[in-house]
């Protein structure tokens, strides 16, 4: 009940019973508040605000820088992949062209070779034909001799005397 007594005493002393209106308690609180608040404002302006604000600014810079780096790297990678794709397409085009060229070249070469072979073949064919004709002609010339010989032999066998070649020759047709 000592507190209650103090309140009662304060109520008598103060104006209207509120301890806050007790003027004797004002100067001490005002001075202390000024000192403490002054110290706090000093600390905030010299230490806390620069430090915390600096950290936040530093972080924002870092994040901004990192995002910038990431964006740059992504652009770079995109450019590279685009270049690679272009290169691939070009290579594919080249390969296509190469294949086409090779095919046409091969076709041309084979056509040329075939025609060459054809020519060679036809040449040897005509040569062979000529030789056959020659051989045939030659053979035809020999046919008369063979016939004469055969006729002589037959005559000799049948008659026992050999026929004169001129007679046999005469007996043979002019053309076999």
């Amino acid at each position, binding site marked *: *009940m000592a507190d*209650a007594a103090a309140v009662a005493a304060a109520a008598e002393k103060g104006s209207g*019973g*509120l301890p*806050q209106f007790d003027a004797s308690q004002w100067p*001490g609180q005002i001075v202390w508040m000024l000192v*403490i608040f002054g110290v706090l404002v000093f600390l905030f302006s010299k230490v806390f605000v620069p*430090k915390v604000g600096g950290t936040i600014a530093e972080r924002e810079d870092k994040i901004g820088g990192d995002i910038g780096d990431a964006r740059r790297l992504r652009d770079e990678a995109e450019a590279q992949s685009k270049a690679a794709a272009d290169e691939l397409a070009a290579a594919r085009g080249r390969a296509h062209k190469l294949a086409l060229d090779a095919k046409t070249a091969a076709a041309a070469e084979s056509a040329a070779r075939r025609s060459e072979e054809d020519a060679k073949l036809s040449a040897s064919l005509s040569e062979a034909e000529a030789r056959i004709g020659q051989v045939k002609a030659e053979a035809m010339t020999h046919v008369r001799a063979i016939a004469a010989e055969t006729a002589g032999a037959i005559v000799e066998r049948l008659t026992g005397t050999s026929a004169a070649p001129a007679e046999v020759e005469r007996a043979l047709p002019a053309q076999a």
Partner: protein
Amino acid sequence: MAAIQPMEQFMIKKIVDVPPVLVPGLGPIDLSITNSVATMIFAAAMISIFFLAAARGKVVPGRLQAFGEILYDLADKGLTGPMIGDRGRPFLPYVFALFSLIAFLDIWGLIPGQFTVTSQLAVTVTLAVVTFAMVVIVGFLRNGLGFFKLFVPGGVHWAMLFLLVPIEFVSFLVRPVTLSMRLFGNMIGGHVVMYMFGSFVVALAVFAMNGGLAYLGFVGSALSLAMVVALTALELIVAFLQAFVFAALTCTYLSDVVNLDHGH
């Protein structure tokens, strides 16, 4: 049963006696450490320790640092930035310190048995007068005699100025009063109401002990307890809000004089 003494919680009690300091022109001033002064010192120490720990400057913050940075952003991007603008930067430390101190003292006072420094009119008047004085000094330093343009609203007929200038002037002078009374009134009101409901919890329960119809007292007691719980939550909001309002009004007043040439 203890007598209901709702004002007893605001009593100043001496803890350490310090001999009065004689200030020339003012007379002796009692600088004894009272429960109020001790709480102020404690608050300043806690705030300093907290921000020293929070200002470690890691790029990836810990919890403490993250909380400190949230408070910093609240003061920077919630108060001085939008309310004063770019010119508000120099006032950030003042506004931030003011907000931190009032918020801590308000919230600390909600702990049962702890002293509520911001319920002391002497304290709120001190803070309000310091703020007001700073506004006036900054006003004159920035604008010279142009400071008086503050009392002349733009875009009105000149004849109206005979009426408006005195109104503006009085409303300016009354600022420290409203600033201090708002915080003081909110704190004392909330604490008295909480005390009253708290005492009902006990008084009604004791009354219910008489038996019979008096058992209904338990209902009242329980309701009062629920009220105390609800009021505690409300007062927590009020504690934060009043600190924010004090700091926000400080910003508004500073903005008036800092951006005077911008045509407010």
